[in-house]
C-alpha cells in the first residue's frame, strides 16, 4: 500500500513535468501571422512567411522569410531550417496571393489553410497586384506588424467601407458552391503604401478580372446584407448627391420563361443624404422624390453594366447559378454555364432617402 501510493506520487510528479500532448509554449514558437505566395518560375512558387519576434521591452520586430518550393508545407519546412523556434500557423491572420499565381489557380494553397485545424476560418485573403513578397518586405512595416496591418486594413473597409465581406470561410463557401464564383480584395503597393485597388473576381480558383473601386458600392449592395457605405452620384444636370446607406436588402427572383431562367434583382436601399450640390444655384428645398428616382436609374444602369461584364467573362460572383439551382430541380451545370452569358437580368432599385440631414 505504501509502495503504491509512493509510486502514484512519483508518477504525478513525473507527469507534471512533462505533458500528454505536444506543447506549444507561446514564447518557444514562431507564429506565422502572414503568408504570401508568388509565382517563381513555371513549376515553383515563392512562399513568404511573416512572423513577429516579441521582446520583453515591447520592441518587437517582424521577420520576413521566403523560400522557393512546390507546396506551402514544403516551404514551411525549408524555412524551419532557419528559424530559432518551430514555425506554427495557428495565429495566421492574412494570406496573400500574387496576381500571376492567382491567374494559374490558388486552390492548392488555400487547401492547406482549411485542412489545418489550428487555422481559423476568419483568416483574411487578398490578391496582390504585384508581388506578395515585396508587400511583406516593405521597410516601413519592419517594426509594425505588417500582417496585422493588412488584416485590419481589410477588416475596417469591410465593416465601415465599401469592400464586400470576404475571408477564408466565404472564399471556401463560394468556391465549393455550384453556380457561384469567389471574389477577393485586390491590394497593391502604391508609393510605399498598401492600398485596396479593386476586387478580384475568380472563375473557380483562377483570377479572371477585377472590378474597380467605383463599382464597389453597387456590388456590395448586391452581395452583402445590410451593407453600409458611401457613394457619390453625379446625376442629370450635374447635380451631385452623396448618399450613405443605412440599410440595404437585395432580393433575387428567378422566373423560368420558355425553359430559360430570368433574374430580377430587387434592391432596396435606405439611405441618408450626406452631401448635396445642385447645379442650379437657387435656393430650393431638396426634392426627395426627384433625386430618388434619378439615383435609382443610375444604380440600375451601373448594376446592369456590371452584370454584363461578368457575363462577358463568364464569371458569376453574384451566385445567380446557385439561386437558379435553388429554384429549379433540373439544374444542369453544363447547360447553365452555356446559358449564362445570355441570361436576362433585370434590376429594380428602390432607393429611399430617409434622412436628409439636420438642416432642411
Amino acid at each position: 500500500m505504501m509502495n503504491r501510493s509512493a509510486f502514484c506520487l512519483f508518477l504525478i510528479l513525473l507527469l507534471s513535468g512533462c505533458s500528454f500532448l505536444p506543447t506549444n509554449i507561446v514564447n518557444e514558437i514562431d507564429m506565422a501571422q502572414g503568408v504570401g505566395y508568388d509565382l517563381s518560375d513555371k513549376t515553383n512558387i515563392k512562399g513568404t512567411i511573416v512572423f513577429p519576434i516579441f521582446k520583453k521591452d515591447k520592441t518587437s520586430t517582424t521577420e520576413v522569410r521566403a523560400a522557393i518550393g512546390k507546396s506551402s508545407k514544403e516551404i514551411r519546412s525549408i524555412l524551419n531550417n532557419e528559424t530559432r523556434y518551430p514555425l506554427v500557423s495557428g495565429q495566421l491572420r492574412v494570406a496573400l496571393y500574387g496576381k500571376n499565381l492567382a491567374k494559374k489557380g490558388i486552390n492548392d494553397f488555400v487547401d492547406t489553410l482549411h485542412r489545418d485545424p489550428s487555422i481559423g476560418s476568419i483568416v483574411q485573403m487578398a490578391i496582390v497586384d504585384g508581388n506578395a513578397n515585396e508587400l511583406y518586405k516593405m521597410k516601413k512595416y519592419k517594426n509594425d506588424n505588417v500582417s496585422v496591418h493588412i488584416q485590419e486594413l481589410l477588416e475596417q473597409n469591410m465593416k465601415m467601407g465599401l469592400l464586400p465581406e470576404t475571408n477564408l470561410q466565404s472564399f471556401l463557401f463560394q468556391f465549393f458552391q455550384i453556380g457561384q464564383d469567389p471574389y477577393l480584395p485586390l491590394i497593391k503597393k502604391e508609393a510605399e503604401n498598401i492600398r485596396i485597388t479593386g476586387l478580384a473576381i475568380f472563375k473557380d480558383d483562377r483570377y479572371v478580372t477585377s472590378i474597380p473601386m467605383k463599382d464597389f458600392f453597387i456590388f456590395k449592395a448586391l452581395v452583402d446584407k445590410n451593407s453600409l457605405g458611401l457613394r457619390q452620384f453625379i446625376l442629370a444636370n450635374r447635380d451631385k448627391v452623396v448618399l450613405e446607406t443605412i440599410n440595404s436588402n437585395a432580393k433575387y427572383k428567378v422566373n423560368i420563361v420558355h425553359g430559360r431562367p430570368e433574374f430580377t434583382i430587387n434592391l432596396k436601399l435606405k439611405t441618408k443624404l450626406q452631401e448635396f450640390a445642385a447645379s442650379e444655384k437657387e435656393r430650393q428645398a431638396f426634392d426627395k422624390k426627384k433625386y430618388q428616382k434619378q439615383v435609382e436609374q443610375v444604380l440600375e444602369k451601373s448594376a446592369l453594366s456590371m452584370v454584363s461584364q461578368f457575363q462577358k467573362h463568364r464569371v458569376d460572383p453574384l451566385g445567380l447559378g446557385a439561386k437558379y439551382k435553388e429554384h429549379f430541380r433540373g439544374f444542369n451545370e453544363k447547360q447553365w454555364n452555356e446559358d449564362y452569358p445570355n441570361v436576362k437580368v433585370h434590376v429594380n432599385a428602390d432607393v429611399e432617402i430617409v434622412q436628409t440631414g439636420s438642416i432642411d
Partner: protein
Amino acid sequence: MNLKNSDKGKGEGSNRRTDPIWLERLSQSNDFVHEHTSFREDEPFWISYYRTLISSDILHKDVLPYLQEQIPLAELKSRIPVQEIILSKDTNEIIQNILNGHMAIQKHQSDVECLLINIANSKFRDVGVPNMESSALGPQVGFIEELDTNINLVRKRLPVPELHVKEMKVGELSKTKVAVLYMDGIADPENINTVIQRIEDIQYDHIQDSSYIASMIEDNSNSLFPQSISTERVDRVAAGLTEGKIIIVADGSPNLVILPVTLMESFIAMEDYSYSWIISNFFRLLRLAAMFISTMISPLYVAIMTYHYELIPARLLETLVGSRAAVPFPPFLEALFLELMIEMVKEAGIRLPLKIGQSLGVVGGIVIGQAVVEAGLTSNVLLILVGLGSLASYTSPVYKFSNTIRFIKFPVIFLAQWFGLLGVFLAFQLTLIHLLRLTSLGRPYLSQYPIRNTSFQDLWLRLPFSMQKENPTTLRPQKKWKSTGKGKKMGPANDFYE
C-alpha cells in the same frame, strides 16, 4: 472562617474510616480542596471543590455564611441562595458536577450523600463583533465561547416557544456540552432526528470546537466542500432557523454550525439583506463569478500558454508573449511557483500576530512579487492574474468555503498542464459531478437540479422581500410560506412528493 485544611489530617484519619469513592478519586489532584468548616470533628460541615473551577466570591458570600448552624442537608438546600442545588448519592453524578464547578457539602467526611451547589466560575469574554465575518451593515454581534450565552443570543432574536433546544454531552474525555437548536413546526423532523442521532453516535474522546462535530456528521467527509456552514453571526443563525435549518452549538466554540446547506449559501452575505435587492443581486452574482475567476484563471493561463496559442487575440499577443519572453520556466512551473508563493504569504499572514502580519503583507505582496517579475522568473501578466485570483477567493462570506476555493485550483493547474483546455474542462465536469452527488443531511448540496422556484426567491438571486414568500423547499420545511398572512395556502411544502 474557621477553615481547617484536611490534607494533613487525612493520612491518619483514613485508617479508621473510609471516605466515599468520589472523594478518594477527586482528591488525587492538588487543586482539589477538601475542608472542614469548624474546629470540631463532629460538627458541620465538610466542603469539597476544585479551587480552579469555582468562584470564591460566590463561595464566601452566598454559601459559607449558611454553614455555621448544624442543620440537615435538605434544609440547607432551601436556605442557600444559589440557583442550582442538587442533593445526591450517585457517585458518578457527584464527580461530574464537581468537575463542572459545583461544590459538595457533606455532613460527615464518610458520607456518600452530599449537597451539590453550582458555584462555577463563568468568566468569558464579552459578546463582541464577529471577527471573521465582518460586515459594514447589519448587526455587529458575534457568538462567544460559552454555550448558554450563545443560546441566549439566539433566543433574544427568536423569542418564541417553538425554538427548541436539545442538549447532549459529547466526547469521552471532554464531555462537551452540545446543543441542537431548531424551530419546531418548521424544521423537518427527519433532519432533526438525523442530526441528533449522528451526534449521539459520535465516539471520540475530545471535542474542541463545533467544527469537529460538523466534520464528523458530514455526509461525505472526503469532499473538499464543507457541507455545513460555520458561522459566528447571530443573524445568519436566526435566519437559518426560521427557514427550517438546524443549528449545532458546542460549548467552547464561537462558531455555530448550520445544517443542511446548499453550495450557493456560501455566496450569501447577511449584508445582502441590507441593500436594495438589485444591488445585492449584483454582489451575489459577483461573488459567484469571483469563484470561477479564482479557480479558473491560472489554469486557463497554463493551458493557453502551453497548448492553445491560437486562442490569443492578435492584439493581446504582444503583451502576453512579450511578458513571457525571458521567463526560463514553462507556464506550469511559473504558475505553480507563484500560486504557492501567494498561498504561503496568506498562510503566514494568518498565523502571525496582527502587527507582524501587516508588514508581512507588504513584504510578500509587493517586494517579492515585484522582485520575481524583475528577476524574470515569472511574467507580470501572470502576477496580475494570480493576484486577481487570490483576491477573488476571499469574496466568499463563508471562510471555510474560501479555503476550498483556495485549494481547488491546484489540481486544476495540474490537469491544465497535462491536457490543456480539455483538462480544465475535465476538472470543471468532475467538480460538477461531485457537487451533484453531494448531499448535506441527505438534501442536495448543489440544489440546482431539479430547479426549484424557491432557489430564485432567495438563493441564486435575492428578490425583494415581498417576493420571498416560500421557505426553501429543498429543506422540506413543515411550514411552506414564510408569512402566514393573506389567506395563503398553509401546510407542508413537500406535498409534491407525496
